[in-house]
């Protein structure tokens, strides 16, 4: 076909004009235009500006393909902190969501709460509330609010008053009262609020004065104050809400957030970045840098690559293996024993897991030490109890499940399963703080189970449908975990192992043990810590004996941080908190982490 086309070309074309001289002419014209605009320097004319920038940009851009940004821009770098986060927030209102990713992007930046955790710990300290009084029966919490706390402003809203009791009432009543004008905005579902059954717990919220509110509870609840420090308890502006109502855009309250936090929301480019700016009227300690960017990088490998190339200052959720590389290359590695647990839950409603012997047998068949090494790279503690040792309720006397395939086999034959059987292991498809790689874990367990004659099939769905299927009880056994969002041990037991949570909650073992249930219920109603501890200790022994879970690990929470970032504290509950963080003036050129991860290193490291 080609030859056909070309052969038919006529000789006429031989004489046609060449395109090249024209192009040169165009170039000259472009050059002279840009020169003219430089001389006249009328900056308001966008066309001239475009041309001017274009000529500069093209020249520099082409010459400068491989060079770093010039000095002028790097001086601004001292005012910018880039945090490589693991995902896009589902909403900019923490009341509407449960994901840690959304909390990180909102609760510690834009918003503040009545009370908060002291930086880097789980002790409660005042925030928007200056002080509080708890009545003796534990049914009334009276908060005295801080004066002169300013809200942010944006294009649609300039606050005319400072924070007061109305904002507290608005923030909680929106979630609590179905008839509240804002209740249905954003879908009308407040997952955290309802999962903690706060709707039945809080009977009333009273405005005592402009700067005083009282929460009235239906029953004593010792973890209540801890709950108020969690993201769902963020305080929104009632004035902004009414302003949005006036301009008929109520849903903007959740997408263009206004709060009292240290950073003002500036711009969100979906799936790419969130840009914040320091709020100069913040009531607490002001941030020492001006701009904050959340660079959304869901892929952990990519996140680490960007971090090691110096494109982000802080990296969230590093893989265990990244920690070692980062340490070898003199980056800051921040770690704290996490308030989390990774577990393997047996669905006790499905045979053979209704038999406690089978559950015990399978628990003993898994080599958890090997998992800790291969999956967590030793950046975790072997889990004995559902709660981590850092919790005050931890029972140190619970016996550890030992890896012993022989006894496991024996137990199985006692239970009448001489010929083995086959099971499904549902492995979650995503990386979580408590489990960096559930599929890898499942592959290792598959091999262990084979040794005792149990065939395991690994099943995985996309995260959303995985969770909904598991909630429906479709699974046989599942690898999951839990990140506590407040420091109270109740935050593990009630949502994960209570009878109520077996029906609708996160009790994926569907395990309901009346004695256990009674113990944890009592423990959350009494305020004496020693008594609570006793109850929890007993509950942990029951959980161990009944083995609804094989508790696997408590992973360390960790962050990778560039050396120019100073005073970042990692907290066991919130993943990231910029309180007190500063950036050093000196830019330390990041070392590239291409050092070989050799087998020798791996052997000497433990």
């Amino acid at each position, binding site marked *: 076909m080609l030859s056909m086309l070309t052969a038919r070309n006529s000789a006429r074309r*031989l004489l046609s004009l060449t395109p090249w001289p024209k192009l040169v002419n165009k170039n000259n014209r472009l050059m002279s235009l840009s020169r003219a605009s430089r001389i006249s320097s009328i900056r308001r004319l966008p066309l001239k500006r475009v041309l001017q920038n274009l000529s500069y940009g093209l020249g520099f851009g082409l010459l400068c*393909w491989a060079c770093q940004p010039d000095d002028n821009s790097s001086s601004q770098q001292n005012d*910018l902190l880039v945090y490589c986060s693991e995902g896009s927030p589902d909403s900019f209102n923490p009341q509407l969501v449960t994901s840690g990713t959304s909390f990180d992007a909102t609760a510690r930046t834009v918003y503040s709460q009545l009370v908060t955790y002291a930086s880097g710990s789980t002790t409660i300290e005042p925030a928007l509330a200056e002080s509080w009084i708890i009545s003796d029966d534990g049914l009334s919490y009276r908060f005295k609010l801080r004066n002169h706390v300013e809200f942010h402003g944006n294009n649609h809203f300039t606050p005319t008053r400072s924070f007061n009791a109305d904002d507290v009432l608005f923030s909680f009543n929106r979630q609590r009262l179905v008839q509240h004008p804002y209740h249905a905005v954003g879908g009308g579902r407040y997952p955290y609020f309802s999962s903690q059954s706060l709707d039945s717990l809080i009977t009333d919220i009273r405005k005592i004065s402009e700067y005083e509110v009282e929460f009235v509870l239906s029953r004593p609840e010792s973890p209540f104050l801890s709950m108020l420090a969690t993201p769902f308890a963020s305080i929104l502006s009632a004035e902004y809400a009414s302003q949005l109502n006036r301009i008929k855009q109520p849903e903007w309250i959740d997408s263009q957030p206004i709060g009292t936090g240290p950073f003002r929301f500036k711009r969100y480019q979906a799936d790419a970045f969130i840009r914040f700016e320091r709020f100069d009227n913040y009531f607490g300690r002001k941030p020492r840098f001006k701009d904050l960017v959340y*660079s959304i990088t869901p892929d952990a490998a990519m996140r680490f690559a960007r971090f090691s190339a110096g494109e982000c200052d802080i990296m969230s959720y590093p893989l265990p293996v990244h920690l070692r590389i980062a340490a070898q290359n003199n980056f800051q590695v921040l770690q704290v024993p996490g308030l989390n647990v990774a577990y393997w839950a047996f669905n006790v409603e499905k045979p053979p897991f209704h038999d406690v012997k089978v559950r015990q047998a399978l628990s003993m068949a898994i080599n958890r030490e090997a998992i800790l090494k291969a999956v967590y790279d030793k950046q975790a503690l072997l889990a004995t109890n559902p709660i981590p040792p850092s919790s005050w309720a931890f029972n140190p006397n619970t016996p550890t499940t030992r890896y012993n395939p022989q006894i496991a086999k024996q137990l199985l034959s006692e239970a009448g399963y001489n010929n083995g059987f086959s099971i499904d292991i549902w492995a979650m498809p995503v990386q979580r703080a408590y489990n960096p790689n559930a599929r890898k874990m499942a592959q290792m367990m598959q091999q262990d189970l084979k040794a005792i004659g149990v065939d395991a099939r690994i099943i995985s769905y996309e995260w959303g449908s995985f969770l909904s299927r598991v909630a429906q009880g479709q699974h046989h056994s599942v690898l999951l975990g839990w990140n506590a969002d407040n420091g109270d041990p109740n935050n593990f037991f009630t949502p994960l192992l209570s009878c109520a949570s077996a029906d609708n909650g996160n009790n994926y073992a569907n395990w309901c043990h009346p004695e256990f249930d009674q113990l944890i219920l009592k423990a959350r109603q009494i305020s004496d810590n020693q008594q609570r501890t006793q109850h929890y200790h007993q509950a942990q022994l029951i959980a161990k004996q009944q083995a609804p879970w094989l508790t696997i690990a408590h992973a360390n929470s960790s962050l990778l941080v560039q050396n120019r970032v100073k005073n970042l504290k990692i907290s066991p509950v919130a993943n990231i908190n910029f309180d007190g963080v500063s950036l050093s003036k000196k830019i330390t050129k990041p070392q590239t982490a*291409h050092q070989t991860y050799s087998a020798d290193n791996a052997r000497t490291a433990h």
Partner: protein
Amino acid sequence: MAKALFKQLMTLLVSLLGLTVLTFALSQQTSTPLHPYQSSNLFGQYFEYIGYLLQGEWGVSSIHKRDVLSDFLHHFPATIELISFAILFALLFGLGLGIWAASKRGKWIDQFLMTTTLVGYSMPIFWWGMLLVLLFSLTLGWTPVAGRIDYIYDIQPVTGFMLIDTLITQHSYGMSAFANALHHLLLPAITLSTIPMAIIARMTRSSLLSVLKAEYIRTARSKGLNWQRIIWIHALRNAFQPILTISGVQISIIMTGVILTEYIFAWPGVGKWLLEAVSRRDYASIQGGVLALSFFVVIFNLGLDLLASYINPRLRRPS
């Protein structure tokens, strides 16, 4: 001409109908219906679906509750920017290499270049991109790893095209921001351009060689025109037409490549967006993304056909 145009439009219509059937099937996978259909049978629902599409209501994503069409348009400029640069590279270097090889026909340089292009053509670009990142970004530190621009530049998105936005920005750093955006574009564009570049180089070489055999070139040579002039002026003009025709195939190769490239470089375009939608089983976004991208390819091909027949009337085929 009018008849040919009519035929082309009919083809377009048939193509679009076929596409919407596919995406309608995709939209049926959502747990709640994409649109509030009145009709109970599939056939009626399909026509309602078309109606909704025409009104610009492409559904709402099941995860982020965002409007699918505006989400797509939001991510599209980044993809277009990447594709344009890749095509530019591919044309520039592909033509160059092809001409060079053709003018050295049979010499070792020709063989070397042709082997190189075959290597480029066979390259799994997801691997190639990773190799480039490993070498240039992680080991040498010459290029950025990911993203469209450094975050020190706060660029107001106006058009969505970073290069344009950096130029019209009111901020003082317009020029260095533009350079920085170009710098970020370099590695992804090279990765994406590899295969098209190889194809164009081979195409250019072979069509040049067949043009050079033609009678009029021999005439020109015998008239004493110098070789360079012949190649540049006469041969290339004529060789360019088949290269244009093959570009239709290129766009589908490039679209495949852009999905992988965006994944590797975390480039916030439609490819990455679509892949994330697939991994979340967000069928509303998947059907919208597939439809919009296919629509783009079909339109692009049609435009190319029209352009080709405009440039060369002989290409207007009777059937």
